[in-house]
């Protein structure tokens, strides 16, 4: 087996995550799909690191994880704040700026 199959899997997971972001309305699930996309990118980075035989790809994946952790903290805080004011976690209810 060639490690390029890991890249195919990463592409598939990224596509599923992107479709989830487009389809779902619950903000928490949308967020989970974003995490899925980040994880798919990480898998691609690790696989490229193996393909090229140097560790830079793993460093980038590590930084992605750190940034994802920070993103989750702030994003979930926004969802909690939104839920407090609207009693809903649906992205359709964030429509105050809609004409």
């Amino acid at each position: 087996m060639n490690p390029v199959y890991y890249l195919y899997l990463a592409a598939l997971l990224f596509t599923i995550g992107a479709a989830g972001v487009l389809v779902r309305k619950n903000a928490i699930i949308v967020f989970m799909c974003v995490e899925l996309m980040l994880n798919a990118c990480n898998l691609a980075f690790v696989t490229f690191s193996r393909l090229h035989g140097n560790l830079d790809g793993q460093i980038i994946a590590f930084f992605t994880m750190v940034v994802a952790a920070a993103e989750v903290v702030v994003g979930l805080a926004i969802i909690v704040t939104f839920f407090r004011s609207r009693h809903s976690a649906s992205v359709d209810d964030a429509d105050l700026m809609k004409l």
Partner: protein
Amino acid sequence: MTTSTGEAVQFWVLAIVAVLGALGTVTMRKAVHSALCLAGTMIVLAVFYLAQGAYFLGIVQIVVYTGAVMMLFLFVVMLVGITAADSLKETIRGQRVATVVTGVGFGVLLIAGLANAHLSAFTGLGAANSGGNVEGLAALIFTKYVWAFEITGALLITAAIGAMVLTHRERTERAATQREMAEQRVRSGVQLPPLPAPGVYARHNAVDIPGLLPDGTPSELTVNATLRSRGQVRDLSGEPLTRVRELEDGADDYLDQDRPVRRDTSAANGSSEGAAQ
């Protein structure tokens, strides 16, 4: 150069699990189920990292993603409400079909691009990991990527402060004292002393049997609100009356008969008593 057969088998088995988990994340109606599916996918990805020689990242994936990030997700799901299922009504007409078409197109483009790249040979991490995976990563982070490392530290501090600022609620009025809360309770006319216990003046003291008021009617207040809303209140106050009526009917039969059949009546009594229990 190819990977070992063991890794190929592991890949094909776990890739199916990963894709199923990802599909579950997208399609499950409840946020908790989505979170569990996503956790499964993340654990599978951690195994893939370990299999590909990224030992440090594999462990960090389990500790940070499935350990910290998913727990944070579940925590927020609990805060927002587990039972709140997502509505499946489409806000924009035809959005779902368009999404599937777009997703398939995007996926086909991505995979075709990868297949077109002819990545047949690969180096492997044997040489790069010769001094240890963690040591190699550390040497890179603290030399070539030290600036990015410092910046991520600043980013994490900013994120922590941002989360605190976002979720902090300033108290706009003075907190009510205990005396004020007591006065409020008296004025609002709710039940002040503790609720009466179930089974008081009743024939049982089980929690689902309401206590009887002096006039013999059951009091709903004595039973737990949860049992009441579930309709699991067992009301036995009517049963003694029916038993008395049964006894009276039996007495009529007994008086009508010429010869008393003592054995039959006692058996009937016993059976009715058994039914009452």
